[in-house]
């Protein structure tokens, strides 16, 4: 599958090594980083274990068969199957590494010594920071969200901590690994010796959740989930829900938008007062939303510069005027699955988008070898 000639990473060759027995949450990070590079034109060769990358069998599934997760994470790549437990497999991999600029893989992999010693720069994805000495610790993406402190931030204070929807630990780590990869390629391009990159999902989650550490350091008490005590809450409206979001400077505009004279009470003028009387504040504002649609609320709020957020489901995003106008959702013709619609890279480069090409079918074992 050739990339168009003028894509920005066209000159680079990358290997993505998929060992058979790796926690899937690490694989999602590796595959996302490599997918971004592949959509940008890098020649990405995905080395799958016999039987294929287990993500091929991971949900969500498409009604016509196959994994939506796999199709999303492996666009624009080529693939081959190698048994890295065999000498033949490792020899074949060695040959591929000779021609590559960088190699992405997860810890632990049987091929780690070979990969770290190759002339391709290693990009390693791990679960935990090296300092934890936790190579044998059981891994789940959910437990990593807990370690990094993100679970503590979402939900009601007296109820269970909640995870954010999607694969946020894996994908944030995948975006990070892409940036690390870009740094490696830039160093090699400038004739430098490129440093190896290591990304752990746990460190990425803590880094993303830096306000918890910053808040605890500054005030002694950690920020945490506030639920119905928060100034930002979710309220029902005629056709769904809206997130009430506003900054301190936007309070007067929000007060004018809702138009209830009770909001003029001086106790609501500053943030501390609004927080102290938050139940009363929401009793006043909630009825305003009930008879309006999300679209009406967004139009009225934006007209006053208030950043309320109507809540959309993935299915509704497919119809979103803004996404349609920007062509954010690509239409991709897949040879066996038909026409697929999926988000493309969230950047326009001189007005250009990067259309993804279909993920590879599972090839016969050791074809390329």
């Amino acid at each position, binding site marked *: 599958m050739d990339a168009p000639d003028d894509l920005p990473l066209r000159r680079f060759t990358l290997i993505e090594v998929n060992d058979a027995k790796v926690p899937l949450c690490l694989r999602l990070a590796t595959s996302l980083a490599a997918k971004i590079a592949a959509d940008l034109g890098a020649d990405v060769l995905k080395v799958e274990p016999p039987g294929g990358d287990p993500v091929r069998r991971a949900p969500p599934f498409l009604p016509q068969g196959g994994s939506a997760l796999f199709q999303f994470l492996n666009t624009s790549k080529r693939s081959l199957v190698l048994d890295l437990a065999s000498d033949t497999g490792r020899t074949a991999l060695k040959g591929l590494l000779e021609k590559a600029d960088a190699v992405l893989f997860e810890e632990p992999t049987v091929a780690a010594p070979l990969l770290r010693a190759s002339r391709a720069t290693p990009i390693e994805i791990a679960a935990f920071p090296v300092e934890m000495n936790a190579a044998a610790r059981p891994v789940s993406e959910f437990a990593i969200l807990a370690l990094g402190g993100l679970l*503590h931030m979402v939900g009601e204070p007296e109820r269970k901590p909640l995870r954010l929807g999607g694969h946020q630990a894996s994908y944030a780590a995948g975006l990070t690994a*892409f940036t690390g990869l870009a740094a490696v390629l830039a160093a090699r391009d400038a004739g430098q010796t490129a440093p190896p990159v290591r990304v752990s999902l746990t460190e990425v989650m803590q880094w993303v959740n830096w306000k918890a*550490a910053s808040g605890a*350091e500054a005030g002694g008490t950690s920020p945490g989930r506030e639920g119905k005590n928060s100034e930002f809450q979710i309220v029902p409206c005629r056709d769904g829900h809206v997130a009430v979001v506003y900054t301190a400077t936007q309070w007067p505009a929000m007060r004018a938008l809702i138009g209830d004279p009770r909001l003029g009470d001086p106790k609501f003028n500053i943030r501390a007062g609004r927080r102290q009387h938050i139940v009363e504040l929401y009793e006043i504002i909630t009825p305003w939303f009930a008879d309006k649609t999300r679209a009406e609320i967004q139009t009225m709020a*934006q007209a006053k510069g208030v950043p309320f957020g109507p*809540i959309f*489901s993935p299915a509704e995003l497919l119809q979103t005027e*803004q996404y349609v106008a920007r062509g*954010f959702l690509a239409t991709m013709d897949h040879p066996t699955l038909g026409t*697929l619609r999926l988000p493309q890279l969230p950047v326009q480069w001189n007005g250009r988008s990067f259309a993804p090409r279909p993920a590879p079918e599972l090839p016969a074992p050791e074809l390329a070898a």
Partner: protein
Amino acid sequence: MSARPLSGIRVLDFGLLTAGANTSAMLADLGADVIKIESGAYLDPFRVVGKPDDDDGWWNRSPQFRFTNRNKRGLALNLKDPEGQRVIRELAAHCDVVVENFRRGVLDRAGLGYKDLSAANPRLVFAAISSQGDTGPERMNVSFGSTLDATSGIASLTGYAGEEPRISGMDVNYPDQIVSLFATGIVISAVMAARRTGKGAFLDFSQREVASFTLGEEILAASADPARPNGRHGNNEESVAQQDTYRCKGGRWIAVTLGTPDAALEAFCASHDSAAAVAALLARGIAAAPCNDGNDLLRDTALQGVTLVRDDRGGLVKGLPYRLGGKGITIQRPGPDLGQHTCEVLRELLGYDDAQLKRLAEAGVTSTTPTVGEI
């Protein structure tokens, strides 16, 4: 220090809060010389949000500002003043990258948009990070981090089972945090192209799109099957036998993921303190972890890895989300005071002399104190 991946690259940084300022911070981490532009009339809002007290110099003490802007030099130049605009245009001629996350049109109106700056410097890589992107009917919409939890789809999949959606909230503002992880890599890719071809690029990032991109498989699955049920399932995940948070003896919560369901888990956790429960589960090969808070993250240096560092004033600041050559970063300089490096940079890059600098200060083009009045 040996050459780093972005050694020799200079960044003109109009980035504010997290989305913009952190993208340029990550470029600084890789060796770029980042010069941050603020003005007395318009501070990075983090200086105000994190205001610790009302004493003189409060604008230089915000922890949030210092967390995000370490390793940058800081200039204060009035963007609304034609003289300030002229100086910034001169600076842009000496830069490789511009990062900005103003509302669309702000820099264009000041004559500092991509069209103006690239006319004088065609190799400029211009990263415009905005809520909705630079085009489309909603391009002028305002948002704050958690607005995008809602509009990106993340909130629709977050919540207690069968209940209303949830956002990450003002202490996380999750969509603001992830955009820099992606934007930095794209900016580096464009810098590589500019080094090779001499031609820069206009990079248009929509934060909302970045957040929706993290739900790629959900959007793809919904497009293939419009009837696909979704919504809130608490902490459950499709194809995971049992996964939830459980309250332990003493009140701490732990997160557990099981390959096979275990109805006794809740009672087991309730009768053990969190450390004992996690240790016992791990010993049985089950993924488990305490639901840490900010103080836990501060205490556990092994867990922190390279994500937190101290600057030379002893202040805690953001480290790296990844390691290069096995290491994190050393902080070369703390987050700048307002206008701390205005004179240094204008002398160094533009050759200004004392008389010129004095004139700019007297005219209010440069400053070291806010002119925004009471906050």
